[in-house]
């Protein structure tokens, strides 16, 4: 049976559609329809096998201003291609049918990619195509490939001709999905892009087209392979660097760590240096930004269980340290005047700045808003469009830092920020990302600048765009984060480094003290599973270990699921996790609670709180669990394990374990009896409240913010 995809650029007349569908179904086809359809006018006797009904005016509607000159056919295609269902049907259809002139272009485009399908204009030709297919076995992948694949020699010989004379149709045909999915297809195009004695322009053109085909075929690694192979043949270093960068970008976009990341970063930095030396700061900034974005993409560091930054921080950062442009950006400008001492005749003017994320600021703000010695202002840089535009402007920031003179961006940043700096005695910038870079673009005058770095910032590019010489106090949430940051930013190890502090996050832990029922003893809990780095599989292993001894142990997972689309690693991880969870949920060993606003209530039923992460700054969920009286069991976070500072130095001895077996042992030991369990829990709670509760931590903050300032 053939699958037919009807495409409508304008709503088909009901009788016509009814007749078309019947005739095709009588000919033995499954009939699907996408496009302009007035569903209210669909005849009752039409039984489509699939329908994606779009507005009737898709041939007229503009999706973007740029589409003003688009033909009706292009508008229809632009709209239909957005529909995942339509793309899927287009790929699988045996016969693609344009029902009207405006639908022709869409079918034409679909047919370029689905080379095995018949592409027809009109119903009767479609019926003939369906009948013509009867009795013919569907072509296998190899057959399709063979019928569409030119010889390697032909491609090499005729490359110029193919590209210049028959551009889209020819290339589209030989970059079709089955071709691109095959090893032979990849080899063919690798040979083509390596053809000697052709211009960079032509080679680039071919590579881009082939890469597009790979993209359509969902083969980002093939796409990167083609672009990398092409780059190696390009004569112009700048073109080579850009193409290597493109190759790496495609892989990252697909969630894959690039194979040639180092080459791409090195090449981009080399050209950035060259441009910088030549006084061309705009392209230099662009290239440097690209190199940074590649090197610090979250696919490499956040959305997987390991990171090259954690494994070899200095080695990873070395190309930037060797780059003139990158070191110019990082070079300390210093400040003309030191920060003034806090005023004694009036309250301290404290500006707390962040960009949208105020998760860890609420208690701090509340505290200082009611503090008699502080006049506070809160600045959300994301809430004001002008401020937002200068905050997340990495390339312009880099250009400013690379330039000897003030750039228009620098002037704009000055204009936007100076009034705030002039007002404040102290600026507290939360998160060492764009806001910190922005505030240190400017000489703060006599205003004191305090920046807090939580954790993930160390895995981002932003610390390399911050001028630490303009920061007076740098706050970390844990020693191991401070250690990693100072390793990555050499300036922080020098004599002019800002004062560095380790202050625990502001948490109201008193609210977590709720009596636990006895059966909570066997209830393990974990708060936060939305990232791969939380590694809940480790927790499942711990659960299995303890259940071998006593199947009363259960695990409660609190929090939203992880997003499978951020990286291949995430997707694979989630697949595995779901498989294992399904098995454990079936026997009632695991429950998923989902996101909640009432964590204290949930934790009341948890007897053992786990931290299974591969990295953390300070694990708030664990701390909250400990405060609630749950027994803490903390994995020695692998990112920092064995270093001078790690989970073992952050938490009391005994809480931290090196393996699931050790974790199981600690759980079995501490929960052996209700007494031992309650005793261990009380001890943990006492520690948590004594160390991390806000009444304690706020004193540290007062010391940081106010010092000995007394009116």
């Amino acid at each position, binding site marked *: 049976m053939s699958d037919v995809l009807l495409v409508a650029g304008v709503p088909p007349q009901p009788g*016509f559609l009814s007749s078309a569908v019947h005739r095709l179904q009588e000919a033995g086809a499954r009939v699907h329809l996408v496009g302009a359809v007035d569903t209210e006018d669909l005849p009752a006797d039409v039984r489509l096998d699939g329908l994606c009904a779009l507005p009737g005016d898709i041939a007229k509607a503009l999706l973007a201003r740029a589409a003003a000159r688009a033909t009706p056919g*292009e508008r229809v295609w632009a709209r239909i291609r957005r529909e995942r269902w339509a793309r899927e049907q287009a790929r699988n259809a045996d016969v693609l049918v344009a029902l009207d002139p405006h639908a022709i272009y869409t079918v034409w485009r679909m047919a370029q990619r689905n080379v095995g399908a018949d592409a027809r204009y*009109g119903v009767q030709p479609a019926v003939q195509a369906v009948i013509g297919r009867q009795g013919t076995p569907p072509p296998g992948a190899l057959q399709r490939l063979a019928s569409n694949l030119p010889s390697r020699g032909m491609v090499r010989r005729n490359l110029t001709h193919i590209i210049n004379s028959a551009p889209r149709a020819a290339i589209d045909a030989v970059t079709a999905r089955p071709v691109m999915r095959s090893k032979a297809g990849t080899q063919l195009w690798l040979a083509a892009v390596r053809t000697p004695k052709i211009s960079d322009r032509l080679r680039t053109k071919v590579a881009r087209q082939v890469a597009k085909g790979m993209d359509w075929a969902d083969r980002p690694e093939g796409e990167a392979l083609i672009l990398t192979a092409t780059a190696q043949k390009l004569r112009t270093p700048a073109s080579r660097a850009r193409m290597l960068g493109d190759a790496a970008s495609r892989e990252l976009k697909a969630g894959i760590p690039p194979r040639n990341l180092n080459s791409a970063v090195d090449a981009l930095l080399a050209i950035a240096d060259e441009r910088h030396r030549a006084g061309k700061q705009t392209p230099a900034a662009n290239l440097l930004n690209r190199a940074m974005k590649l090197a610090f993409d979250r696919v490499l560091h956040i959305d997987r269980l390991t990171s090259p930054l954690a494994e070899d921080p200095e080695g990873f950062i070395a190309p930037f340290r060797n780059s003139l442009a990158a070191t110019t950006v990082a070079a300390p400008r210093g400040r003309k005047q030191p920060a003034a001492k806090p005023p004694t005749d009036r309250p301290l003017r404290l500006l707390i700045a962040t960009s949208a994320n105020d998760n860890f600021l609420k208690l701090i703000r509340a505290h200082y808003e009611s503090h008699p010695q502080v006049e506070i202002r809160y600045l959300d840089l994301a809430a004001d469009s002008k401020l937002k535009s200068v905050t997340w402007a990495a390339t312009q920031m880099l250009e400013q830092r690379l330039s000897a003179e003030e750039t228009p961006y620098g002037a704009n940043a000055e204009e936007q920020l100076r009034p705030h700096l002039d007002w404040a005695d102290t600026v507290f910038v939360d998160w060492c990302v764009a806001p910190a870079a922005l505030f240190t673009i400017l000489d703060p005058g006599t205003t004191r600048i305090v920046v807090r770095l939580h954790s993930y910032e160390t895995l981002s590019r932003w610390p390399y765009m911050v001028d630490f010489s303009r920061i007076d106090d740098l706050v970390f949430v844990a020693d191991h984060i401070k250690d990693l940051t100072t390793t990555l930013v050499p300036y922080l190890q020098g004599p002019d480094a800002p004062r560095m502090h380790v202050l625990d996050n502001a948490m109201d832990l008193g609210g977590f003290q709720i009596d636990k029922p006895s059966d909570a003893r066997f209830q393990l809990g974990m708060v936060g599973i939305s990232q791969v780095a939380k590694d809940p599989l480790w927790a499942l292993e711990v659960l299995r270990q303890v259940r071998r001894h006593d199947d009363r142990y259960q695990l409660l997972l609190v929090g939203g699921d992880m997003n499978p689309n951020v990286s291949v690693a995430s997707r694979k991880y989630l697949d595995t996790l779901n498989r294992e969870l399904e098995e454990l949920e079936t026997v009632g060993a695991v429950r998923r609670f989902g996101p909640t606003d009432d964590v204290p209530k949930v934790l009341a039923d948890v007897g053992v709180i786990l931290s299974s992460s591969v990295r953390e700054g300070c694990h708030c969920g664990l701390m909250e669990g400990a405060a609630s009286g749950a027994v803490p069991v903390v994995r020695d976070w692998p990112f920092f394990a064995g270093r001078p500072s790690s989970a073992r130095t952050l938490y009391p001895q005994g809480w931290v374990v090196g393996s699931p077996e050790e974790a199981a042992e600690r759980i079995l030991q501490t929960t052996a009896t209700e007494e031992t369990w309650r005793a261990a829990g009380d001890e943990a709670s006492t520690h948590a409240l004594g160390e991390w509760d806000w009444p304690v931590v706020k004193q540290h903050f007062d010391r940081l913010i106010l010092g000995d300032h007394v009116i």
Partner: protein
Amino acid sequence: MSTAIKKAEYTPAMPTSRELSSSSATGRGRRDGRPHLIYLAIGFPPAAKSCAYRMRETANQFRRIGWDVTVVTIASTSWERDSGVDYSLLEQVDPGITVLELPLAREDLETDIRMFSEERALRPAKWVTDLRKREKRVFPEPVFGGWRDTIEEAVLGLHRQHPADLLLASCVPYVNLAAAWRLWETHRVPYAVDFRDGWSIDVVNGGVAFTEESEPGVWERRILDECQALWVVNDPIAEHYQDRYPHIAERVHVVRNGYDADSVTTVQPRRPDPEAGLVFGYLGTVNYNARQLGAVITAWRKARELEPLMRNARLEIRGHIGAGAAREANGLTELISTAAADGVSFGGPVLKAEVAETYANWDALVLILIGGRYVTSGKVYEYMATGLPIVSVHEIDHDASRVLDGHPLWTGACGLDEEGLIDSFRSAARMTIEATEAERAGVRAHAAPFTRETLMRQAVEQLAEGIVRGGADSTGVVSPPPRPRMTDESRQAGEVRA
């Protein structure tokens, strides 16, 4: 006769005119003394076109009188995208006829989107407009102008292989005329033209299609000046040409389409059964406009309400609708489908071999025709020969009216007048019940002189006679033949109309 036709091989590398000059022209190089006709008949079977019957009969008649006949048409597959093919039409083709199929097809009717350029896919209407312009630059005829070189070269090649005594160009397409002229210019092979409906006359709307000074006008005059004969299908068209080109008036002949006897020989009127439902039928190319069809459906609907005999009546429309992408899927099919509840249906084309059987299942016929006094559909003769009542839906001043005038089971023409059409349907319904066998037989007898075989035999014999006579001229240049005499039979056919 069998369906196995003899096919000539088309080779793109055709001989030059210099090479050909050594071969003789008229009457020279005959095989076994048989004269040779090159018949440009694009639409020859198996094309499922109305002109196919006339072409088939023409070629058969030349064979009958001992001519070698080479038909030049386009590849059978090219008709797939046009109005379709009907291989049963080949059954009546004389097996001695050689057919040369040229690798030509209407680009504008291409429905395989894979064959489209991106530009065509993006702007299909503009692409067709540009195509028309390109075609007209080659020969002043949109749609077919671009075929000129291929047809010319093919004709020259055929003449080299088998010298022709006569070329007969059946138009449409008019680009055939360029090939006729080329052969005449280079080898003085005489030619005749079967215009059927005429070129410089707009047969649908009436009036002149183009002036004498225009490019097609110049072509038409040039061609007709030298032609042996010009065939047209009815008197009004003949008069147009005789008025426009008085110097060739004697060479203009009315060669009516007629009907194929085998299409109606087996029609045995069924017993009308109003309770089960009278069946009205239309058979032919559905080339009329929506307004005309709309009027038919409206009148049909009301007639069914008013006429007890029509309470369960059905109207079956059979034939070809549309071409290319719009084949069997245009506004007319949509209109028909909206009247399904009123017993109106479209049943698709009918194979030639099944025409008689189709008529046999109907009680009355509906003759829907475009145009006016210059149009005579071939169907009118066939309809008449069935002996069934006929409802006319066409202009009052239509050539079909002249053909049908006096037909006892004809309801008369009233244009698109709604009341008139309602009355026509009701009258026809009554006729189905009331008509006597004698009346039906009388009608069939009146139609008898219009068999295609009869009409074409006369025309072909006259044309051939002139050529054979002219071929004896030692100069090799053929003079335009004298006006063919009217035979008694053709006079009789004319008298039936009166």
